[in-house]
């Protein structure tokens, strides 16, 4: 673990402000595990304000330690109830637990109702459990844009296990695999026939399948369909054979077995070197997202700054130009040489 050294760039108003004092507060408190400080920093990250990047820079040396579990599946499958039960189990093992729960933003108003906490509120006062609700804010893929950064903050504050609950997903929201070490797909009996089970997308990403509401009579049929789907497919490249578990989250049945499966997968990750390589992948993922944002922002600022943007759009709209040719003609001078 590296030292939390921070590079100060001269002339940067935020860094010079921080260098002047009064400011080490929140980050230092956060690194000691302080919930209030962590919550404040997460809010900055969530709102994407410039100070957030400053905070993330300073937290970066302390990240990469937590074990991240992704929980995804259709709406109403019982993801939150399952997370609630898993929090309880991890707490019994003495783990400090973070939960990031994502709910959708209304495409019309931009508002959101974040209700995943309802099922987990009994852990609210436990100082070793931190639950953070995030709205997607227009981001597709099942997570919000800030999810990876919020995880960084939780990781730095010392959460050993971080569970990330996606929005209720359909068949194609698979961002969670890039974020999680272990991906759990939660489904329920009676959602569709066996054709549904061989569809690409979320069923391909599971390290562990959970058939929740397992006390329903059709549960065994769902289990069989999933088993058949796995048998029909080619073995996975990484050699892991996904586990399929029948659980009733509200009755607490099958939770011990689920914990066992999680443990097994974690050991598999550690012994196969994937726990390390996933961390490298995650850094690359975060960097690529930042790079994409930066290039887009730089290009747009340039185009809009000299009025070219509107001109180009008008040209395309009037069919004198087309977007495909215009993009080929644009020469990107982004000045991407690494500084210093």
């Amino acid at each position: 673990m590296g030292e939390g050294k921070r590079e100060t760039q001269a002339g940067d108003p935020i860094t010079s402000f921080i260098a002047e004092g009064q400011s080490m507060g929140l980050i230092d408190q956060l690194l000691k595990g302080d919930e209030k400080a962590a919550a404040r920093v997460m809010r900055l990250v969530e709102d994407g304000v410039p100070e957030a990047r400053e905070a993330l820079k300073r937290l970066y040396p302390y990240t990469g330690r937590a074990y991240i579990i992704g929980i995804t599946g259709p709406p109403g499958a019982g993801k939150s109830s399952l997370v609630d039960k898993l929090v309880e189990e991890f707490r019994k093992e003495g783990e400090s637990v973070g939960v990031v729960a994502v709910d959708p933003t209304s495409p019309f108003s931009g508002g959101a109702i974040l209700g995943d906490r309802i099922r987990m509120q009994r852990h609210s006062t436990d100082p070793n459990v931190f639950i953070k609700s995030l709205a997607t804010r227009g981001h597709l893929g099942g997570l919000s844009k800030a999810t990876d950064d919020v995880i960084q903050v939780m990781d730095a504050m010392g959460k050993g296990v971080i569970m990330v609950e996606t929005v209720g997903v359909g068949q194609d929201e698979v961002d969670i695999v890039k974020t999680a070490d272990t991906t759990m797909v939660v489904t329920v009996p009676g959602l569709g026939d066996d054709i549904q089970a061989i569809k690409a997308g979320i069923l391909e990403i599971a390290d562990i399948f959970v058939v929740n509401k397992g006390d329903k009579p059709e549960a065994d049929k769902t289990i069989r369909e999933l088993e058949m789907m796995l048998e029909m497919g080619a073995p996975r490249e990484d050699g892991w054979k996904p586990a399929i578990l029948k659980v009733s989250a509200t009755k607490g049945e099958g939770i011990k077995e689920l914990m066992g499966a999680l443990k097994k997968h974690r050991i598999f990750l550690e012994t196969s070197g994937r726990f390390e390589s996933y961390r490298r992948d995650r850094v690359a993922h975060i960097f690529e997202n930042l790079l994409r944002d930066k290039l887009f922002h730089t290009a747009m600022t340039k185009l809009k700054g000299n009025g070219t943007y509107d001109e180009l759009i008008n040209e395309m709209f009037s069919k004198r130009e087309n977007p495909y040719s215009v993009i080929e003609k644009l020469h990107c001078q982004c000045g991407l040489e690494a500084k210093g």
Partner: protein
Amino acid sequence: MEEKERKIKILITKPGLDGHDRGAKVVARALRDAGFEVVYTGLHQSLDQIVHAAIEEDVDAIGLSILSGAHMYIFPTLIEKLKEQGLEDIVVFGGGIIPTDDIPKLEKAGVRGIFLPGTPLEEIIEWVKENVKPRPVTL
């Protein structure tokens, strides 16, 4: 990172024992439709649970629905607990069955807005827009 407008986050919650959450849900929904992010905790919340949810979610305001008659205990105690945590900048408002005589006392205790049954939702939304701003964060 581009400069973006910060979202306002509001905790809507039902403290104590009464089990009627329709009002809370209607208000939560209306606030969502007005573009706010609403964290809803559900029923039967203890004041400590509410305070911790407010901390973790870093909300700008807490709205309570109280139909049990315990408002003269719940509001002042919550505000006291928020103060203890240094969170006096969180706006506390609420609604429910509250005798008009109690309203000045609650306001004195630090409750910023009280909405009685029958208040048009637009009025609540306008009030929130005017009175709740994202709490500033200094690193």
